[in-house]
């Protein structure tokens, strides 16, 4: 029997706040970080994005690192983790890619493993690894952490998901014509693409229930990961593969679809992604289960998305609240799904977090509330 893996602390640094609680309360209020953004370094013209204007680089650290450090400091708080029993996992797609634009293009920390080592060193973690698997990186990093903890290789894991806006990423998504000129509308009939965003989120996982103290908490259950084997940048036409990852997550949790109370979907608000997800949830027998996408609040934060969206969903789980899908008003996907459009109260026990990304990858993770 694998050891139980608990979430013992978390943090989010985003335009919606500098702690998870602050973020959650702003989302409850319906606020969004997405707004017209003018930053000549990123793009000559103004564009719609969720940018974190209050964090700047320092002499020692880049913007990316500053965000990461703040998130780590907040989450770690008073927790001291034994360095030899703790693994630090960084989830990011591009890390310090904006250094390519700076005068310091040869900066050693342009390489992802070097950033991870730098952050690990700052916080005294002996072992760090980097997961860079496109937009499922965050969920995947949680799954990897969970596996390392279950196997007994480590007792604690610090999972950091982070990505920043940059000329690189903005121009890239623009070249793909994927960026919406207005705030994104996941699963909506009038959706026109994504908004980019930047954020950092940290989850501290542990196998030691004593670390939980007296508060209610959650444990990570089963997971599933799959590949479409269809197209490197377009999602599967059928959604079978995401459904397969979900089925795998349920199976390894020893649950059925009915045991899931709420789904935090990927919901990027591109035409094809949202269609694919709708098909997948049908395949998985989950068309009736309420779901949301948090992209309307944060934009697509790439390597951070899986972590911060899991954190917000966990907070909803603990509060027995369903967070609505900001931007959604007219149902617009070819298969029936239950898109949550209003803040609701409901007894919740388990949630499912999914993500899908370039390269055809999909990930799914089940989280369960445990009342102490």
């Amino acid at each position, binding site marked *: 029997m694998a050891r139980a893996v608990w979430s013992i602390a978390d943090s989010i640094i985003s335009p919606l706040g500098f702690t998870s609680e602050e973020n959650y309360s702003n989302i409850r209020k319906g606020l969004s970080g997405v707004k017209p953004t003018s930053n000549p370094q990123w793009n000559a013209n103004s564009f719609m994005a969720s940018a974190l204007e209050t964090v700047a680089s320092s002499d020692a650290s880049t913007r990316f690192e500053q965000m990461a450090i703040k998130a780590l400091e907040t989450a770690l708080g008073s927790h001291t983790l034994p360095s030899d029993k703790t693994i630090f996992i960084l989830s990011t*797609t*591009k890390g310090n*890619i904006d250094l*390519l*634009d700076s005068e310091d293009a040869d900066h050693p920390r*342009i*390489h*992802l*493993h*070097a950033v*991870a*080592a730098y952050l690990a060193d700052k916080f005294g973690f002996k072992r760090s*690894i*980097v*997961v*860079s*698997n*496109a937009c499922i990186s965050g969920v*995947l990093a949680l799954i*990897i952490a969970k*596996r*390392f903890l*279950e*196997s007994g*290789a480590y007792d604690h894991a610090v999972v950091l998901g982070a990505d920043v806006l940059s*000329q*690189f990423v903005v*121009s*890239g*998504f*623009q*070249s*793909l*014509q994927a960026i919406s000129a207005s705030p994104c509308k996941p699963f909506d009939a009038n959706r026109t693409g994504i908004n980019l965003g930047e954020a950092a989120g940290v989850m501290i996982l542990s196998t030691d229930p004593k670390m939980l103290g007296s508060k209610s908490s959650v444990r990570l259950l089963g997971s*599933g*990961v*799959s*590949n*479409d*084997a*269809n*197209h*490197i*940048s377009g999602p599967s036409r059928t959604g079978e*593969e995401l459904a*397969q*990852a979900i089925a*795998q997550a349920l*199976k*390894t949790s020893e649950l059925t679809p009915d045991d899931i109370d709420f789904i935090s979907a990927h919901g990027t608000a591109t035409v094809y992604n949202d269609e694919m997800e709708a098909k997948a949830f049908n395949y998985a027998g989950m068309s009736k289960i309420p779901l949301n996408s948090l992209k309307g609040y944060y934009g697509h934060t790439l390597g951070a998305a899986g972590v911060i969206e899991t954190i917000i969903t966990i907070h909803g789980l603990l509060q027995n609240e369903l967070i609505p899908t900001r931007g959604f008003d007219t149902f617009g996907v070819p298969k029936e799904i239950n898109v949550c459009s209003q803040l609701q109260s409901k007894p919740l026990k388990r949630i499912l977090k999914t993500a899908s*990304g*370039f*390269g*055809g*990858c999909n*990930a799914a993770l089940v989280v369960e509330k445990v009342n102490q």
Partner: protein
Amino acid sequence: MFISGTSIIRKQTVIHKGALAFENKSVSLDDFLTGAYNYLSPEYPKFYKMDRLAQLGFLATEFLLSDFPIKQYSPESVSLVLSNAHASMDTDVRYHESSKTSSSPALFVYTLPNIVSGEICIRHRIKGENTFFISPAFDAELLAAYVDQVMVQPSVQACIAGWIDVMDSHHDVFLYLVEKEQRGLALPHTAEELTKLYR
């Protein structure tokens, strides 16, 4: 867990299961890659659209699976755990250059390391899980430990794992196949064996 095959590409030389399979040092890396493709003649014109990382991954798996019928496993039961040091930096730099004039979407889609995983999955119809780690150097401990954890997932039968790095003309690929069953000369899947095989 057992290592049933390996494929190495470095110094413009392909070593398959320990034997020299293809070599051409007198040309550029790109010409070497096309040479190796022509040698295999797999009739997969999409190869020419790929970036170097994906081309290397394509070729290495082509060799790795050339004498292994991976298709006998169900698509869902085969996984991929890859790693490297430079992520997609080789293509990132090229894309970044292109973005100064007009951004190339064809290049941008390759600016993620796991695109190579996607290409391999498409080519071999692999639908199991994939993971991409970034490490400063080939990390036998990480691969041995993590691949074992992937392999104990109930649905997983086989896993293609290893190291696939490219930056400018530097390239270093070491892919291997892990299976639950020991067949033939398969070696135990341990960090020690991996270190030996990688050397």
